[in-house]
C-alpha cells in the first residue's frame, strides 16, 4: 500500500492536475446529479414493484450464468492464446476480443443471424423444437458474447506474466498437463481469474443493446434491469432513477471487489537471495 504522505518528488505539472480534476468531475458529477433526483420517500416501493424485482432477479440470474459460461470457455481460450503458437493466432485473438469494441446492437444482430429462428444454427435447433432467440437463454448468450473478452484479456495477460517456468518444473516432476493446469497454472493466476470474472459479471449486468436485439424485452423472461430502466424512463421516471441507483450500487461493489482481487494479484514470490 502506498503511504498517504508522499515525500518523494512527483513532478506532475499543475495544469495536468487541473485537467485531471475536470475529468474526474465529469465522471462523478452525473452520479451525484442522479442522487438529487431520487424520490427517497417512495424509493423502497419503487424498487420493490413486481416488474422491478422480476428484472433485478432476472439480471442477477442471467449475469451469474453468463459469468460462469465466460469462465468455462474463457479459461481454455486464454490458455490456448497464451501458451501455444499456431498459424492465425493473432487473427483469432483479435476476433475473440472484437465484442469489446463492437456496438452491442451489432453483436445482437450477429447472434440473431446465428441462433435466430432462421439463423445458421438456429434452424437446426428449431427442428429439435428448441427456440433460443427471445428466451432467457438468449439473454445469457448475449451477455456471454459481450463479457467474454474481459475475462480472456485479463487472464491471458496474467498467464504471460507468470510465465512457463513453474509449469516446466511441474512437468519434470511427473505432472500430466491437466494436473499442471489444475494444481499450478490456475492457482498462480487465480487473482486475475477472479478479477476477470468480476469484470465479466459487471459487463453482463449492464448489457443492453445485444440483449434487446437478440432477446427482446419480455417481463420476467428477457427484460433485464437495464431494459426495465429504459422502459420505465418513459412511463415512470422516478422508478427509472431508483433502479439506476440500485445498478450503481451493484457496480460500485463489483469494482471494489475487482480492485481487491487486483491488489492481491501475483502471489508474491521471493527472489533468490
Amino acid at each position, binding site marked *: 500500500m502506498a503511504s498517504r504522505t508522499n515525500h518523494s518528488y512527483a513532478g506532475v505539472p499543475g495544469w495536468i492536475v487541473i485537467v485531471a480534476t475536470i475529468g474526474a468531475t465529469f465522471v462523478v458529477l452525473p452520479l451525484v446529479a442522479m442522487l438529487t433526483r431520487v424520490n427517497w420517500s417512495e424509493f423502497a416501493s419503487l424498487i420493490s414493484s413486481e416488474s422491478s424485482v422480476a428484472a433485478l432477479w432476472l439480471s442477477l440470474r442471467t449475469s451469474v450464468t453468463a459469468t460462469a459460461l465466460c469462465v468455462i470457455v474463457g479459461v481454455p481460450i486464454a490458455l490456448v492464446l497464451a501458451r501455444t503458437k499456431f498459424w492465425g493466432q493473432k487473427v483469432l485473438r483479435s476476433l475473440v476480443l472484437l465484442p469489446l469494441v463492437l456496438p452491442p446492437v451489432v453483436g445482437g444482430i450477429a447472434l440473431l443471424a446465428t441462433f435466430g429462428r432462421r439463423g445458421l444454427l438456429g434452424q437446426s435447433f428449431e427442428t429439435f423444437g428448441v427456440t433460443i432467440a427471445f428466451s432467457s437463454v438468449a439473454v445469457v448468450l448475449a451477455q456471454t458474447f459481450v463479457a467474454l473478452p474481459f475475462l480472456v484479456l485479463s487472464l491471458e495477460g496474467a498467464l504471460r506474466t507468470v510465465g512457463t517456468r513453474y509449469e516446466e518444473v511441474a512437468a519434470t516432476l511427473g505432472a500430466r498437463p491437466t494436473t499442471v493446469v489444475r494444481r499450478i497454472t490456475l492457482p*498462480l493466476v487465480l487473482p486475475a481469474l477472479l478479477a476477470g470474472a468480476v469484470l465479466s459479471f459487471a459487463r453482463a449486468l449492464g448489457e443492453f443493446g445485444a440483449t434487446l436485439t437478440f432477446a427482446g424485452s419480455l417481463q420476467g423472461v428477457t427484460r433485464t434491469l437495464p431494459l426495465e430502466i429504459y422502459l420505465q424512463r418513459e412511463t415512470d421516471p422516478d422508478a427509472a432513477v431508483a433502479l439506476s441507483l440500485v445498478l450503481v450500487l451493484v457496480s460500485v461493489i463489483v469494482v471494489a471487489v475487482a480492485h481487491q482481487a487486483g491488489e492481491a494479484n501475483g502471489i508474491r514470490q521471493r527472489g533468490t537471495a
Partner: protein
Amino acid sequence: MSLEFCASMRDRGFEMELTVEEGETIAILGPNGAGKSTLLQLIAGLLKPDSGRATLNDRMLFDVMPSGRERWLAPHERGISLLAQDALLFPHLNAIDNVAFGPRSAGASRSDARDRARTWLDRVEATDLAGRKPAQLSGGQAQRVAVARALASEPALLLLDEPMAALDVSVAPAMRRMLRHVLHGRTAIIVTHDVLDAFTLADRVVVLDDGRIVDVGPTRTVLDRPATPFAAELAALNLLVGIPAGGGVLTDSGHRVTTSSTRPAAASARIGVAVRPTDVTVRVREPEAHRTGENVLAGMVTDLELRGDVIRVRSAELAADLHPRTVAELNLEPGMRVWFSFAEEDAIAYPL
C-alpha cells in the same frame, strides 16, 4: 548403460553425443552460450531437437529423424527431474506440499505423498521448514526444499543447472555437502561454473564449447591436464600448446619450453604444457644467463587482477600469481614488457 544421448539443433549450432553411466554424476563445464542449458532442456524434454535419438535405461526419450518422422516422450513421462539455479518452488504451496507434488502427480495418496515428502525434507535437513510458504524461506533454504522436491519424484536421472550459482557464498558449502550426500550413487548431470563442484560432486567432467564437446574424462585428468584454454582457466592453470621440438616443446607463439616430464612423442602430435600461476615469477629486466632448467618467456603485461591475497599478472600467454609487495616493487602495470620464468620441474607436459 543409463543415458545415451545424441542430438543436434541447427539454429543453436548444437551438436552433441553423450553417455552417462548408471549411478554416475557428470559435471558439464563450459563458457556462457556453450550449449549447457540447451543440453539439459533437450534431455528434460523442454526442447525438441532437429534430429537425434536418446534413451534412458533403454526407454526411448526421443527419436527425431531429419526427414520429420519423430517419436517423442513428454517431459512428465521421462522420469527426469530438473533443478534450476532458482529454486522455483510453487509459491502457493508450502514446503512440504511442494515436495509432495511429485509423488502426488505419480498417483500417491495425500498422506503417503506427505510421508515421502517428510522423509526427503529430513534428508536435506529441512524438516523444520515443512509448513513454511516459499516466500518465508531464504535462498539457501528454498534450494534445499527444491532438491528434496526434485528427488521425491524418484527420477531415473537428475539434472542440476548451476544449483548453487544464485546462493550466498556463506551457504554454498553446506549445500555442496548436502548435494554430495544425495548425489552419491545417483545418475545425475550437473552444469556448473565452479571447479570445486566438479571436484566434489562429479565422477567425470564434460567440457563444452560452441555447442560441442571439446574435452571429456575423469575430473582430475581434465582439470590437471586441461586441453582447452577454458578448462585451464577453470583449473587455474597456465596452458601452453605446441609441438615437440628437440627434447622440449615449441609453443604456438614461438617459445621453446623444456619440461622435466617431456617424453618423446610423435613429431606431429600436439602437446600441452600446464604450469601453476604460483610457480611463475616475473622480472622486469631480461635475465642475462638462463639457469639450467629454467624457462624464460618474454611477454607484455595485459592485466593485473587482485585474487584473494595475491595479484594475478597476465600476459597474452601466461599468468603469474605475485605477492602485492612484489608487484609494487617491480612497479608493474599493463603495457609493460616483462619476462616470465618457471622451473622445468614445475611444468607438466602431456599429449593433447
